[in-house]
């Protein structure tokens, strides 16, 4: 006689539900259950066309919400490079478009309708045309090989299966005994996790494929293929302290950066070019100057002041006669606040990163910035940054003494540093030079506040202030 254990009592139910699950899985439409060969003729299913429509809507959304940087010259340049690395033959339901996304995070992505977005953050960090070509070639591969559609189909199938398994886990746990909990744990939690992991694994394969095709596209156009690895190196080194917890293994959609750098560099050595490798750093920098300046404002806005300083420094080196470039360097140093440009060793320890993560989880960006300046070290660093910012604004004003933005930036620096009289003088001059500026009201208000609190008398002659 066999002993009946609680676990065994549940077994027939689990088997029955497994059979039901298999039935549901097999009854999924063929377009979902089976991914198509990405290299063969692609047949659009209803689901694909829905995704295509969503992509077109996403394009409209980002434009409407002011997330695309409208710079015709830079856009034309990116399109010129992009069109070199996309296939010549037209693709069904693809219209190639290249757009600059106003986002300081270095990134690029492609929508299945053929729109490729490169963030201002990535454009500001890249060094030359070859790197841009590699990035665009990588993204174009996602479009050409219909990766989004394939991934969407695969994800839908796997999510459906995971949902069914989770439901089975719930139903199978009718008993409250230990076995019931174990079954729920295995069927309802572990199996969906395994399925989800294959989704991300699949995506990593596609990323690898895109890297390989991107390199080939670079080589076809004589772009130095080793520059693709250089982009990854740039991403890896970055200016900011990386507070994201490192994700290894299954839950990353891109192959790990080190692994990627290795295989991209190995492959680039084997590729044959038709002539001298093309890099074009000077042309790229010239074309991207406005994008870089715009990106600095976004870096500052999102608390990435170190990157802002890095990009601004590069701009001033590239074009040392431009007053605007030095103005942005001043702004970037002012935004650095109580941080040093280069992260200090103590900031890079795990405990320091954990503490920073914790603080950022509890504070707003203003509170965090203010907290950095209150420490003794923060106060010293702020004093250093004030000097550097002052020098940058000074250089900007030496190049153009009536450059209103630099006058206002310098005044804001004095204001933040508690030098009310100098701040007032600067603000007043700014209002004389730019009475209709977008921030004129804000500055007038600040002048009024300073006059009240700092007891600095208003000038006898009437200016444009209220």
């Amino acid at each position, binding site marked *: 006689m066999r002993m009946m254990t609680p676990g065994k009592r549940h077994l027939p139910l689990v088997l029955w539900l497994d059979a039901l699950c298999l039935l549901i899985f097999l009854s999924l439409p063929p377009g979902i259950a089976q991914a198509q060969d990405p290299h063969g003729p692609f047949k659009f299913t209803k689901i694909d066309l829905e995704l295509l429509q969503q992509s077109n809507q996403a394009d409209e959304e980002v434009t409407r*919400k002011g997330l695309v940087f409208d710079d015709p010259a830079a856009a034309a340049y990116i399109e010129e490079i992009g069109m070199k690395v996309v296939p010549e033959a037209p693709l069904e339901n693809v219209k190639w478009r290249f757009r600059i996304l106003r986002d300081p995070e270095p990134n690029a992505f492609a929508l299945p309708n053929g729109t490729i977005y490169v963030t201002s953050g990535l454009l500001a960090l890249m060094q030359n045309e070859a790197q841009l070509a590699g990035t665009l070639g990588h993204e174009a591969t996602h479009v050409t090989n219909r990766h989004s559609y394939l991934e969407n189909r695969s994800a839908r199938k796997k999510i*459906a299966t995971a949902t069914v398994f989770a439901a089975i886990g719930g139903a199978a746990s009718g008993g409250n005994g230990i076995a019931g909990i174990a079954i729920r744990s295995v069927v309802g939690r572990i199996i969906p996790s395994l399925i989800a992991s294959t989704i991300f694994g699949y995506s990593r394969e596609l990323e690898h494929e895109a890297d390989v095709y991107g390199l080939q596209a670079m080589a076809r156009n004589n772009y130095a293929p080793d520059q693709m690895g250089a982009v990854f190196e740039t991403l890896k080194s970055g200016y900011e302290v990386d507070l994201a917890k490192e994700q290894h293994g299954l839950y990353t959609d891109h192959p790990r950066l080190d692994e990627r750098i290795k295989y991209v560099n190995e492959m680039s050595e084997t590729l044959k070019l038709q002539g001298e490798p093309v890099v074009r750093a000077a042309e790229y920098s010239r074309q991207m100057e406005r994008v870089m300046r715009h990106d600095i404002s976004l870096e500052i806005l999102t608390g990435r002041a170190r990157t802002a300083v890095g990009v601004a420094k590069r701009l001033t080196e590239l074009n040392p006669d431009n007053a605007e470039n030095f103005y942005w360097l001043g702004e970037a140093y002012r935004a650095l606040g109580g941080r040093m440009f280069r992260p200090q060793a103590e900031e890079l320890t795990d405990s320091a990163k954990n503490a920073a993560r914790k603080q950022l989880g509890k504070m707003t960006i203003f509170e965090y910035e203010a907290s950095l300046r209150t420490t003794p070290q923060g106060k010293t660093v702020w004093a250093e940054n004030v000097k550097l910012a002052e020098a940058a604004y000074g250089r900007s004003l030496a190049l153009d003494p009536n450059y209103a933005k630099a006058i206002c930036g310098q005044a804001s620096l004095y204001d933040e540093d508690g030098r009310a009289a100098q701040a007032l003088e600067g603000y007043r001059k700014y209002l004389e030079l730019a009475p209709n500026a977008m921030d004129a*009201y804000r500055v007038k208000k600040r002048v009024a506040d300073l006059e009240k609190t700092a007891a600095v008398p208003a000038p006898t002659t009437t200016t444009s202030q209220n």
Partner: protein
Amino acid sequence: MRRIATIILLAFLAMPAWSQFEHPDLKSGKAVVKTLVILPPNVRFVKNGVKSVEEMPEVSRDLENALPPLITEALNQKHYEVNDKAFSSDALEKDSDLKYAVADLQKRFDEVLPQMQRKPKDVRKGRFTLGDEVAKLNPGGTADAMIFVRGFGQTVTGGKSFLSAMAHNYTYSGMFYHIAVVDAHTGNVLYYGVAGGLGSHLVKTPSAGKSMEKFFKNFPEGKSSS
């Protein structure tokens, strides 16, 4: 026990309007609000099905377009002047600097919002601010306050409801709006709360209108009563 907890949670979530939190300056009358401008609302609505969570851009956009007049109506009833055209699509299309400035301010709000969600009571301590950069979008200082709206909603398919119930992981349709009234001169968050609730009917415009009315019910009366 688990079912009881779920019922209590549902009863709490299904409340059409949650508490609102007022800045001390608004409560004391130090911050005087007569005229408000509405920044373009951001709404994300999804269809949560068995196979995927799909964006529903048309529904999102319809709600985004419907909200400003509904908020205007709710505030007009409280005798406020509301400008819901200052940052309309037409106005933004004509001026790319304005478009970028609005997008940047929206981003700043999105960075502060998680902290407000985490500790909404801190609005009463005057903790939250977007900074005086908000005044950039207040030419001439004509507006006293700005309204930010973030909507999050989903409709759950029958299959997903059934399967999630089987997994004891109940999923419901609903629509929630995080609304903040921000001082247009200083950037201080003067009033914050959540409107909406559970139920697929809340996606429809009349329900959104009711949600707005309820949300602003406790907002101080406007100029005619002051």
